């Protein structure tokens, strides 16, 4: 399944200017293409935009027609209510989510890169079996084992503790699979042979030779894992308690009355909860784009 794409042997990337002129011959700047992309962009943004609009208004704006499409002036008031809400512990929720997401992302990237590389590039007995096993592990729905997992958390004394939303997710089959595919596609065998001839141990090879090549994928995996952990909802509700929540749990608590959803408050919370992810993507997304461009250029 490996693609015999030519890749230069130097792993660390050199930055080259974008070949605009060279590309223009092949790339068609059809206005239709732009129109389609623009439409997609609008559809992608609109629900979030509307959510933010409601966050800046009061809850009754939800059912209005014509619909409220412009921001109102209630954001300050809603923010105050949000952070002052006693049962939500929103600030703590933000912090907990950050710690959990960062830990899980770091761990997943590390362990899945190791495993993915091994499954892609190292020959050892049982390799195929393990690969299949990894794919099978992905099929295990989280909710299938939710009660036994709860029992386990109970036994470890982790119910209501942050570890409960961290440790079970330190590795992911998805991550291994993704790194495996990437390593298979992108790590040239000649590079590995050269390293071995130089006398590097496998670990050394991994650190100095493979990691740099895998870096774009690692950034992507780390980013995706961070986001996924940040947005984890069902497990958080099941295992944590309201006084030690993650941010999604907090948002769920944001109702002043027991029976009606206070949309403006919840959406304000959701807005603050989404902000860190957007910032993260703004920082790392650029680098992501850059790496992808380089990959294209080198060929």
């Amino acid at each position, binding site marked *: 399944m490996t693609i015999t794409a030519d890749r230069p042997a130097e792993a660390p990337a050199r930055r080259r200017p974008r070949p605009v002129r060279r590309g223009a011959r092949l790339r068609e700047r059809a206005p239709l293409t732009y129109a389609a992309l623009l439409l997609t962009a609008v559809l992608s943004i609109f629900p979030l935009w509307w959510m933010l609009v409601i966050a800046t208004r009061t809850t009754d704006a939800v059912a209005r027609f014509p619909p409220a499409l412009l921001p109102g002036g209630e954001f300050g008031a809603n923010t105050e209510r949000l952070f002052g809400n006693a049962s939500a512990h929103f600030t703590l929720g933000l912090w907990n989510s950050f*710690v959990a997401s960062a830990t899980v992302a*770091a*761990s997943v990237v590390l362990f899945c890169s190791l495993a993915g590389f091994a499954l892609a590039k190292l020959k050892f007995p049982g390799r195929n079996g393990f690969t299949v096993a990894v794919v099978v592990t992905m099929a295990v729905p989280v909710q299938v084992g939710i009660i036994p997992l709860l029992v386990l958390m*109970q036994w470890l004394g982790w119910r209501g503790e942050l570890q409960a939303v961290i440790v079970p997710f330190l590795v992911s089959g998805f991550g291994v699979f993704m790194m495996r595919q990437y390593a298979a596609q992108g790590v040239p065998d000649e590079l590995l042979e050269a390293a071995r001839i130089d006398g590097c141990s496998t670990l050394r090879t991994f650190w100095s030779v493979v990691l740099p090549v895998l870096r774009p994928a690692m950034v992507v995996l780390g980013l995706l894992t961070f986001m996924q952990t940040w947005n984890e909802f069902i497990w958080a509700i099941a295992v944590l308690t309201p006084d030690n929540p993650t941010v999604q749990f907090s948002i769920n608590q944001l109702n002043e*009355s027991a029976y*009606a959803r206070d*949309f403006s408050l919840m959406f304000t919370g959701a807005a603050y909860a989404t902000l860190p992810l957007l910032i993260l993507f703004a920082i790392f997304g650029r680098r992501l784009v850059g790496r992808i461009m380089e990959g294209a250029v080198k060929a």
Partner: protein
Amino acid sequence: MTKRSPTTRPRRALRAAAAALGGGALLLATACGGGGGDGEVTLTIDTFGVMGYEALIERFEEEHGIQVEERNITDVADYTPQLQQNIASGSGAGDVVAIEEANIAQFMLQQDAFVDLAEHGAADLEGDFLDWKWDQGVAPDGRIVGLGTDIGGLGMCYDTELFGEAGLPTDREEVGELWPTWDDYAATGEEFTEADTGAAFMSTVQPLFRVVTAQAGGEPFQNTEGELVIEDTPTTREAYDTVTSMTGLSAALPIWSDEWNAAIQDNAFATMPCPAWMLGHIENTAGEAGEGRWDVAAVPGGGGNWGGSFLAVPTQSEHPEEAAELAKFLTSPEGQLGAWEEANTLPSSPEALESPEVTEFTRPYFNDAPVGAIFGATAMELEPVYYGPDTQAVDDAFRAGLESVEQGQATADEAWETAVAESERAAG
């Protein structure tokens, strides 16, 4: 229970993970870090919704020198599963826990999960509660599991403006006289619909089923042995038929849905069965625009109750004695009055119900309706109802069934069959 400070650094978590994997079986559960080291007791009370205990808790803390922390989960639909897990797994529940009327029988099933409050002097308190409420909190084997907090009572809320537009009386006494029975209520509904105000007479028939079966009393869904008797109890089917005959008057908006709440704001329907706790919801949802529009009249069919809660002490509590004290305090007549003042939750204590704070209380939002007196009266004279362990599930099943009838996706008979079948599944 002390709050954990947010300094769980990543490395510590990783080390914990390593320890867990290595030590595995040897890692004992860390006890929920109660601050019991210096002899200072901290109690946790688990509540849902708005129970009005803030001021009361402060008083208790002062008088007893015990710290009390309230953990609140707003939505009872989220609260109950958590409580179930905590009880089932033997740890994680507060020292005092609130339990809703529909669920208490289910929790009582777990023989050893709750402290028999009789061991802490609760038996003497029987007179402080309405008979039927007291009985609901006592397990079949006589253990006093739950002490009653609030009750729902029953009223019929109506929109005075819409009634006026439709040419119906708007004074609550007169409105109450419009419908002594449910048939009269339906007839009024026809009249209202003909007046064509643009609004529906009711939002949904779903809650009516619960109301009418409650009024009939007895064992509508399950008997005390836990067997389903839905088809055996004639009043249940009668209630169902009464209710489904009114689907033409309904706007078919599922209760508690966002659309239903929007409809309240939109003044899209004129009547709604309301227990005491529903008033707060209407006020919050309709907001300023709704002030003075809604009023409360007597409910058709006589007295009844919908909802209410209990406080119980799980046996897993490390301070059962103090927890029982807290529970007893909060459910005492003065405790219930305190909650009434703070959150307008209707007391279940006759003494409190008859006190001037309740009987003379008028609620400005609802046209200064004497809600205390109205609801109190319905609570005093009603037929006791037994709600079995699977009440919640049966309730859900019939809610879905009624929704399918009023939205035109099934006939009344089909929906009945489906709901009964679903209830049988749930009762397992």
